[in-house]
């Protein structure tokens, strides 16, 4: 397969990923054909596009590692109306380069709850208070920016004294221990 074909296929896979995983609406089927495979007939291009989309979706959905990928693509080359070995090479290289970003996009697509968009904080010192025991007590002001999907952010502003912060740290340590336990078992 000529180098040009390899690059065209790579470009096609990029275009598919843009449409399917990165929600880029600027890229159309017509553009892809025109720029990458001008010599192919409409039917042939459509068939190529569908085949490659299907393969990419399978790979991404299973979050294949490179062993699984090799086995999968080898099987594809053996199928009737499957793919050519050169195409398998292009696909492997593409997945290697884009796996992380595509996976990130898939993870984001399934996040429907509030997420933490930003966290800022400062520490204030109370210099005046009716209660003498509150003078010179430092207090942390923490602002959490929360939001879901495309919605605008909601801000939660908390005032925490040292004791509250320490209680919070204890909980954070518990969470960290749980996460470590998870890594050992998975």
């Amino acid at each position, binding site marked *: 397969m000529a180098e040009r074909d390899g690059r065209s296929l790579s470009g096609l896979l990029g275009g598919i990923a843009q449409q399917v995983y990165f929600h880029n609406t600027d890229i159309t089927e017509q553009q892809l054909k025109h720029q990458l495979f001008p010599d192919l007939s409409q039917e042939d291009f459509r068939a190529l596009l569908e085949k490659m989309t299907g393969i990419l979706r399978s790979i*991404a*959905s*299973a*979050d294949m590692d490179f062993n699984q990928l090799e086995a999968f693509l080898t099987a594809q080359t053996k199928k009737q109306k499957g793919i050519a070995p050169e195409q398998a090479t292009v696909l492997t290289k593409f997945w290697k380069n884009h796996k992380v970003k595509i996976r990130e996009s*898939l*993870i984001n*697509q*399934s*996040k429907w*709850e*509030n*997420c*933490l968009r930003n*966290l800022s*904080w400062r*520490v204030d*010192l109370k210099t005046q208070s*009716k209660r003498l025991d509150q003078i010179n007590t*430092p207090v*942390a002001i*923490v602002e*959490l920016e*929360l939001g879901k999907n495309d919605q*605008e*952010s*909601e*801000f*939660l*502003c*908390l*005032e*925490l004294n*040292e004791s*509250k*912060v*320490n209680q*919070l*740290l204890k*909980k*954070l340590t*518990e*969470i*960290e221990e*749980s*996460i470590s336990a*998870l890594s050992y078992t998975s």
Partner: protein
Amino acid sequence: MAGCEVRLAGGWAGFDNAVERISKLPQDLFAEVCQQIMLHLQCKTPGVNALEVAERLQTAGVELDLEATKELIHVISLFFRSAAQSNMSAEELIVKLTDSSSKWSKQVLQVIRHVWNEQGKQIVTPEDAKHMLTVGQLVDLQWKLGMAVSSDSCRSLNYPYVTMMLKVADSSGEIISRSFEMTIPQFQNFSKQFREVAAVLDMV
């Protein structure tokens, strides 16, 4: 104090009385109260403690019970808030006030003009802050560690995430809860920030 419609025009039976009471306050005391209210409207403090204000006023010899103090704080907050929403200059605010009631004293208006010039711009208005939820005390934090296994777009998601549920008490004592998710790296950053906060608190 949230959720009240603001009308600076008269037509509120107790308004004139409230204005009269405000106008009787010693200038420096009134300035103090305005200052506290400003800090609250600028979202720098969680709220104005009416009880503390009432005690302060009584110590200074002003005869105002808790209810009257609350009303005073309410009236002052309302007109500051309304002026911020309409982007008024100090002059415009003074004109509006004098139109609303004949009971405003010159000294009180002077304080208002001064406070507004110095600090009016920093008030957080509903437009800026429509997403500003609350400033409050953290009452409770609960967490869970979950694993997303599969979704309709990806059969093999396999990513762990931390969900937190916070309960926060605002200045009126009302408790609201909010939950949010974090990926592990986000949680690690969250953790790191709080440890930094603790370190600073310790140092100060």
